[in-house]
Structures are given as C-alpha cells and as structure tokens.
C-alpha cells in the first residue's frame, strides 16, 4: 500500500498545493487501491476512472497556471449513489434505476466539483437508503473492512467501508435515521449528520424528506469539517435549505476543547439490547470527557422510548409518497409494456420487479399509516411523538452544551443475521433516530474496540440545530485524547485486507 492512501485529506491537499505530489498521482494511487481490494469489500457500485483522472488533471493544470486551489482540491472522494451525477450512473442501490444516467448534478455533486474534489465513483447503499446494513442493495452487500463477513452499517455502508479500507480519504453519506453515523460507528470512521437543512437535498434522491440530510464522512474530525464546509450552505434549489451562515466547523475542528463544557448523558441509552462492550467504551468516553475538563450531567429524555416507533411510521409514510414517482413512465425501469397492458398495469409490474423487499415493506407500511381510518392513530400519533422528542432535546440543551450517547447499541453484526427480521434491523437505529426527528446535528467518532469482539464502537456527540461547530470542537478534543492513549488512529488496528 502506498502512503498516499493512508494520508488524511488535509495532508493530501497540503501536498498537492505545495507540489510534492500531483492530484493525478493521488487519484491513481486510490484507483489502484480500489483495484486491489474492492473485489473483496464491494464498497463501490461504479468507479468513474476517466472522470476522476480528468478532474484530477484539471486541478494540476490549475495549479500549474498559478491559480489558487481550494482547501480540498485534488483530494479523492467516494460519493454515495443517492446523489445525481451528470453522465455517471445513479442507482440508489435499486434495480428500478439500474442503468439510469442522470442529466444533471445534485447541488452536493456540483459543489464537490467546484472545490476540485475528485469523485472516484459511487458507493453501495441499502436500496433508497432504507436499511442499516447495506444488505438491501439490489447489487449485493458490502463487507465491513474489519471483518468481511459482517455488515458495514447502512444505509451508507459503501461510503464508510471505502474510508475504512483506504480506498478514499473522504466520502459523502445521507442520514435519515442514522445512515451516516451508524456506518461510521461500526467501521471505526467519522460521520456527521449536519443540522437539517444545512446541506442541500437538491439532486439527492428523496426517501423521507423531513428527515433526509446529506453530510460528510472521513477518517478524521478535521477532514470531516473541511468537507462539511465545502458541501454546506444555502441553496435556492432546495426550499428546505437553511438561509444562514455555515457554522465555523473547520475553525472548531482545529481548536478542539471541552474545558468548561457541560455534557449530558441520557438514562435512556442503556439497558436491554445494548452490548456490554459498547457500554463499557461509552462509560470510558464519559470518564475521558471529565478528565479533559467537562462537567457531566445525567439527564432523562423519556420520550425517546417512543422515537423508534414514531420514526418507523413517519419515514415509511413519507417514502410511500416520495416513491410514487417511480411509475415507469419518464425514466428508469419499465416492465411488461407489450402493447396490451395499461399504464397502471405496467407501473405495478415495474414496481414489483424493480423494488426489493424492504422498500416494498416500507411503501405498504406508509400506505397503511396514511390511509383514512388509520391516519390519526398512526401517522398523527407519530407526529405528536416527534414534538415530544423535540421538546425533550430542548429541555436537555437548556442544561447542557452537548449530549453524548453510544452511536449504536451493538458492534457490526454478521451479514444475514437480521436480514429477514425487520424489527431487529430497525433497532440498529435506536440511538441515532431522535436526532433526525428533532432536526438537530450529531457526529460519530471511534471510541475504541469492544473487548468481546474486537470491533469498533462509536461515540455519538449531539448538539442543537445550527451548533454543528460544537460537535467538531468536542470531537477534535476527544479524538486527540484517544489517539494519544492508543498511540495511533484506531483504524490502524484493522486487519490487512
């Protein structure tokens, strides 16, 4: 392995800017790494070799002309296959979009390109981002680089696995109920769910519009912050995009500190369903925060007990509506159009052939929850539970600056273990969902390996809406303290592929 693929994004950008390495060399090194290991990992659905080398070449030319480069210019990135990319296939992990080549770029895609970031390809994901294991991809599962027989989390398992296997130093994910944070936790990487509305959803295929949020994935807090700054900010093409300045995330990541910080620990995130080793690493993280000068306050958010149930009504309801657009008429798959069938029959046959089991389950669940007679009892009640979750967070943040929690109840489970047990799969999102319901912001970073299985555990840091910089300030301090204790980043303990 060359050291280029082991470098952080910040290091690569600095070397490209000072000319000690070219962007093309950096891209070639990562493409070679993909060739060497992705047959085993299956992080990518599509590698855009020519496009990546062309983007890298453009950065090198720009530098040769003496033009100023952006802070991540020339650094390669793995893009979740939920963002449209002009001229490059976008499948959302679904047969229904197999072969579709979008005619336009998502805002996130456009901002990455404008920043000179090199898009290596599109990463695997649970179909339409519905899942917690990447097993729901129509194109086969992704392996966790720590143990290829285990899940890399989901839905953004491909993005997280690409980072953990050194195929890319940066990635983009989307987080509707934990799809950035949970994969980060189980792969020993960093993932951030920005404040709802902080990153444009234009060109990001919709799953649950009031919850979906794109965000950065990386191996270090600083790299995540640098990427956050590139993709965040108001976008007139997304009416739910926040028209406010991007919080100073990079400055925060460069100045990690928790001195004088009030940190909340929730009673709700422990007990039944939590792995002992996960709770042990979490308690050690809380001790570390105390040692670093934070004041730890025990809190309770009783409504979180109904957050999972509320989420699995709200998200399916919104998805059943959003996915109605896949009707086989304007783009994507069309089945059974033999001249004898009606448009409606063709639509039904296409959706049957094009959607996988989890997507069908959620569409039917949402259709049920929204149907007359059940609307108040299910969708209406879930919306009220959402209010209670938001209020509990408001009460918590009146007392503390950030809340910390385990990111996931367990470490990575074996591929196949929960594949046909939807409720067991849904519980993987237990600790991440409340943040999406309230629309605030959270980050996951590695806090050690569980003693019983040697697999990574994630520490989740949660902040109020628009206080994304707080996550990075705390995350940078915790990361530095842990790495000083371990003597190296946790990923160096992952077995060689």
């Amino acid at each position, binding site marked *: 392995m060359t050291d280029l693929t082991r470098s952080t994004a910040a290091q690569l950008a600095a070397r490209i800017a000072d000319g000690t390495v070219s962007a093309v060399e950096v891209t070639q090194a990562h493409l070679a790494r993909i060739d060497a290991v992705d047959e085993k990992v299956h992080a990518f659905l599509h590698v855009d070799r020519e496009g990546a080398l062309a983007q890298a070449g453009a950065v090198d030319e720009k530098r040769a002309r003496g033009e100023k480069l952006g802070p991540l210019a020339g650094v390669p990135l793995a893009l979740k296959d939920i963002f449209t990319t002009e001229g490059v296939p976008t499948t959302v992990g679904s047969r229904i979009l197999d072969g579709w*080549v*979008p*005619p*336009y770029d998502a805002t996130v895609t456009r901002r990455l390109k404008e920043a000179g970031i090199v898009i290596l390809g599109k990463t695997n994901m649970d179909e339409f981002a519905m899942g917690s294991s990447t097993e729901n991809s129509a194109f086969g599962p992704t392996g966790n680089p720590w143990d290829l027989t285990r899940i890399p989390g989901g839905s953004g398992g491909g993005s997280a696995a690409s980072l953990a296997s050194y195929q890319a130093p940066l990635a983009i994910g989307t987080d509707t109920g934990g799809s950035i944070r949970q994969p980060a936790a189980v792969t020993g990487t960093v993932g951030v769910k920005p404040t*709802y*509305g902080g990153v444009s959803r234009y060109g990001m295929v919709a799953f649950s519009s*009031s919850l979906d949020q794109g965000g950065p994935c990386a191996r270090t807090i600083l790299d995540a912050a640098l990427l956050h700054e590139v993709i965040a900010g108001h976008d*007139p093409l997304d*009416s*739910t995009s*926040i028209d406010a300045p991007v919080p100073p995330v990079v400055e925060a990541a460069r100045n990690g500190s928790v001195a004088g910080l009030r940190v909340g620990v929730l009673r709700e995130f422990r007990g039944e369903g939590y792995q002992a080793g996960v709770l042990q690493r979490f308690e050690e993280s809380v001790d570390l925060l105390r040692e670093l000068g934070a004041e730890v306050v025990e809190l309770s958010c009783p*409504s979180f007990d109904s957050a999972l*149930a*509320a989420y*699995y*009504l709200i998200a399916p309801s919104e998805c059943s509506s959003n996915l*109605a657009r896949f*009707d086989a*008429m304007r*783009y*994507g*798959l*069309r089945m059974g*159009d033999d*001249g004898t*069938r*009606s*448009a*409606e*029959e063709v*639509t*039904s*046959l296409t*959706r*049957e052939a094009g959607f996988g*089991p989890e997507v*069908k*389950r959620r569409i*039917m*669940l949402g*259709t*049920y929850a929204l*149907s007359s007679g059940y609307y108040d*009892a*299910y969708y*209406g*009640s*879930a*919306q*009220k*539970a*959402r*209010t*209670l979750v*938001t209020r509990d967070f408001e009460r918590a943040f009146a007392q503390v600056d950030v809340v910390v929690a385990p990111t996931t109840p367990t470490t990575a489970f074996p591929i196949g273990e929960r594949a046909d047990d*939807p*409720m067991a799969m849904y519980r993987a999102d237990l600790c991440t969902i409340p943040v999406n319901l*309230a*629309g605030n912001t959270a980050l996951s970073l590695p806090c050690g390996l569980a003693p019983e299985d040697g697999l990574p555990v994630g520490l989740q840091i949660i902040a109020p*809406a628009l206080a994304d910089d707080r996550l990075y300030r705390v995350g940078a301090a915790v990361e530095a303290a842990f790495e000083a204790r371990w003597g190296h980043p946790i990923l160096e303990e992952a077995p060689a592929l």
Partner: protein
Amino acid sequence: MPGITREEVAHLARLARLELTDEELDHFAGQLDDIIGAVARVADVATEDVPPTSHPLPLTNVMRPDEVRPGLTARQALSGAPAQEQQRFKVPQILGEE
C-alpha cells in the same frame, strides 16, 4: 389496535401499485403485522394537548424570484425515457378501449 390481515396487505399493495406474488403476500402479512404491533405504541404518548410536528424547520411558502433560468433541454429530459416519440414520453394506454 387491530392487527393487519393478508387481505388488507393485498389491498395496500394494489393501492401502492405493487403487483405482489402470493408468496410475498404471505411473507409480508406476518412481518407488517409484527411491525405495526411494535409501532402502535406511539398512540400511548400522543395525547390531545400535544401538537403534531410535520417538519423540523418552521418554513412556509419559500419562494424564489420568478425569473427565466436555463433548464433541461428536451433531449436531456428525455434521455432516461423508457420510450419516446416526437420529443415526448411515450406511455402505455391510460384509458380503456372504446
């Protein structure tokens, strides 16, 4: 709250335009019954005095200037069409034969 029957699942599938097989109906009916049983608990906390939240941001009627901007060309818009004719999306019949 009542559970969900196989007949109800078949009805939902029709509403959602999913041409499910018999095996799928059998499989999904049990799973959806389990899921609905587990999520029905939200009704316990949803008391009269709690207002619903539909969205995390208090936004209404976000407008942009009504200006002509470049958009997709017909060729781009039709680039993913399963079938097309005369610069239009070609679709199966939508009305029954007379």
